[in-house]
C-alpha cells in the first residue's frame, strides 16, 4: 500500500534579486546546476527572476518530501528542469537521490505558479513506506 506525500514552498521573487547581487559573488550557482542556470534566462538573456524563484520553491517543496528535517537542502542534487510539454520535471542526484530512496519515494511531480511577487510550488509523490507523520499511526 502506498501513501501520498506533498510538499509546498513559497519564495518571494525579491529574494532572487538579493542572490543576484554582484557584491555576494556568484551565489546563485550554489542553488542551481549549470543546466538550471542555462534555462533560467529570459529570451533577452537576463536572469528570469520569477522562474528562478519558482525553481527554488520547487526544490524546497521536493525537499519536504524527503523526510530530512533539520538538514540543509541539497540544492544542487534537486534539479528542476523543463519536462515534456513545458511542465517542470525533477531530477535527483547524490544525497537527494539517497534520501528519496530511503524514503521509499516513487516518481515526483511538481507544479509551480507565480503572482503578486511570489512563486509557489507544490511537490507530490507516493511512498511505499509508513509515513512518519501519519496521524493514523498516532491516533
Amino acid at each position, binding site marked *: 500500500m502506498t501513501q501520498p506525500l506533498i510538499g509546498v514552498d513559497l*519564495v518571494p521573487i525579491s*529574494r532572487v534579486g538579493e*542572490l543576484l547581487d554582484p557584491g*555576494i*559573488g556568484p*551565489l546563485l550557482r*550554489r*542553488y542551481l546546476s549549470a543546466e538550471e542556470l542555462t534555462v533560467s534566462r529570459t529570451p533577452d538573456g537576463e536572469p528570469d527572476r520569477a522562474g528562478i524563484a519558482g525553481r*527554488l520553491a520547487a526544490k*524546497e517543496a521536493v*525537499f519536504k518530501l524527503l523526510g530530512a528535517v*533539520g*538538514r*540543509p*537542502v*541539497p*540544492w*544542487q542534487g534537486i534539479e528542476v528542469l523543463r519536462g515534456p510539454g513545458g511542465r517542470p520535471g525533477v531530477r535527483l542526484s*547524490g*544525497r537527494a537521490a539517497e534520501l528519496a530512496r530511503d524514503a521509499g519515494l516513487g516518481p515526483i511531480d511538481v507544479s509551480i505558479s507565480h503572482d503578486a511577487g511570489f512563486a509557489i510550488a507544490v511537490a507530490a509523490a507516493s511512498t511505499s513506506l509508513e509515513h512518519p507523520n501519519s496521524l493514523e499511526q498516532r491516533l
Partner: protein
Amino acid sequence: MSSAGIDKVRDWILGRHPERTELAADVDLIESRLVDSLAFVELVYTIEDAAGVEIDFDNIDIEDFQTLATIEKAFFA
C-alpha cells in the same frame, strides 16, 4: 571576547533583521527563523568569506551552524 570573523557573521544576520539590535551567542538561528533554508547558503558563504575557508556543503554538520557560539567554535576558534 569574540573574534572579528564571528562579528562579521553576527553583522550579516543583524543586517537581514533590522528589527533586532542584538544577537546573543546562544540564540538558535534556525529555530528562531533568523536563518531560513534559502539564507542558510548565504550564511555558509558569509562564514567562508569571514574565515577564509571552503565549506563542503554536502557534508555539513548542521549543529555547527546552530548558534553564533557553535559557528565560532567550528570556524573561528
